[in-house]
């Protein structure tokens, strides 16, 4: 018809004409993440929103990622200032019972061993040509802890936030698949059958309350960069153990955690823009993340074997694998493997202690990494 009409049609078709190959691939990636979340149940609470965010971001001319777009608003509100991962840490603190760790303090060391993968992956990444900051960010996937990965990589290499987050959460959900073969390869049947006595000790309420405060002070003074991560985790745990702020504990572990998880997922998804995500480096990050995970598990098991030798054969090295922080899935996998060899072997509580230690150690390692990178 007239010119206005034609331009109208142009405008109506502007969506179609703005489809690029990158956007098509990213739409497929978004659908893949959604499929993983729903069909495979890989961390659906985060991968489903991330996948949806990815879809909505890569639709042509999406107003959601414009200047005042909703996803941009969410990103500014909680990702750029690291508010969301820290709020989630409060919730995790509210839901974590450090009792098994308090009963068996030596389990703390297993948590440290579970962070080896971070640094070994860092070495690999830097050899593959990533910059130092990028290498450190990739290494943090080895913490096997979503919020820590987001927090650290946001500061060191924000351009890699999307692939790192996706890798971190995907691998966290692969714990039951990836860990067992490594655990079996590195241990003998006899080692896996080692039974461990479980002398339960009543942990007083006072100790339970002192624990988060002491950890915060200790870590906060020695590694200031870890203050936010450790502080929020321990603040949540303090509220939990105090027993006097049930309303706040409930809000932190339910309303706030759920809302923030939803917003965080969408915001992370919105960083998966085709032109910056579809790079060779993304694939390498995914591979390196997997390597980091395997190295973590292996380092944990090997450290377990060391403890077995030191204790004169009384320590089941499988427990070492629980030192990574994927809490409490890692501990469960350890118990499953132990029960596979000897149905009556119950090492869950030991594994839980190591697992809780891994949670703390991950935040400490994240802080140390930030400190070291600040130095370099």
């Amino acid at each position, binding site marked *: 018809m007239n010119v206005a*009409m034609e331009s*109208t049609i142009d405008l109506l078709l502007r969506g179609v004409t703005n489809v690029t190959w990158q956007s098509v691939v990213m739409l497929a990636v978004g659908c893949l993440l959604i499929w993983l979340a729903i069909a495979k149940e*890989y*961390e*659906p609470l985060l991968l489903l929103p991330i996948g949806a965010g990815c879809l909505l971001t890569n639709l042509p001319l999406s107003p959601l990622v414009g200047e005042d777009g909703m996803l941009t608003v969410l990103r500014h509100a909680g990702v750029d200032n690291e508010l969301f991962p820290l709020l989630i840490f409060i919730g995790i603190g509210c839901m974590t*019972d450090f*009792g098994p760790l308090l009963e068996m303090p030596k389990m703390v060391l297993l948590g440290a061993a579970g962070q080896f993968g971070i640094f070994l992956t860092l070495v690999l990444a830097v050899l593959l040509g990533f910059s130092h900051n990028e290498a450190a960010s990739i290494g943090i996937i080895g913490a096997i802890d979503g919020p820590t990965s987001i927090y650290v990589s946001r500061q060191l290499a924000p351009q890699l936030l999307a692939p790192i987050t996706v890798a971190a959460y995907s691998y966290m*959900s692969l714990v039951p698949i990836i860990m067992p073969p490594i655990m079996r390869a590195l241990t003998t049947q006899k080692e896996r059958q080692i039974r461990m006595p479980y002398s339960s*000790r009543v942990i007083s309420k006072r100790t339970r309350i002192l624990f988060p405060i002491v950890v915060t002070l200790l870590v906060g003074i020695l590694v200031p960069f870890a203050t936010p991560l450790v502080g929020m985790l321990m603040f949540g745990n303090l509220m939990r153990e105090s027993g006097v702020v049930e309303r706040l504990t409930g809000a932190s572990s339910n309303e706030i955690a759920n809302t923030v998880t939803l917003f965080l997922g969408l915001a992370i998804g919105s960083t998966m823009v085709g032109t910056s995500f579809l790079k060779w480096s993304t694939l390498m990050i995914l591979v390196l993340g997997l390597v980091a995970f395997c190295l973590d598990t292996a380092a944990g098991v090997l450290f377990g074997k060391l403890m077995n030798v030191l204790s004169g054969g009384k320590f089941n090295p499988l427990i070492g694998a629980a030192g990574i922080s994927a809490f*409490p899935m890692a501990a469960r996998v350890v118990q499953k493997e132990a029960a596979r060899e000897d149905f009556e072997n119950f090492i869950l509580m030991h594994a839980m202690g190591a697992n809780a230690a891994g949670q703390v150690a991950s935040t400490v390692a994240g802080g140390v990494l930030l400190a070291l990178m600040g130095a370099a």
Partner: protein
Amino acid sequence: MSDLAWGLEMTVVGMGVVFALLLLLMGVLILTARLDSPDKPAADEPEPPQATPAPLATTPVPATEPAVEILTAGLTVQQATAVALAVITHAEVRRQQAAPAMRTHAPGSQIHTSRWVSVGRGAQNQSWNRR
């Protein structure tokens, strides 16, 4: 009259586009229905997920079904309701306890979850005072 012309043009174009889009959507829906029904009659969904504890509404009904009859023998409908509700609510509570945010799927989910994880997590999330 340019305003009227503009308005009518908007109406024609606008409704045209809306109808076109929704026709397209209808086509896709019909296609989906065709593709979906034959190869998968209903096997995909043995028991559809229920996001809300809605079936509570029907809990008195099972009391008349033979399989449950045994359990509810000697109970009034009200008692059976109370028991059924208690059990369901209890399951709901357990599944919610068992679901730490940020950690994989809601573990109490009646379709997918192993009982093992559910109980393990639930237990982990409370103080160890049994010992």
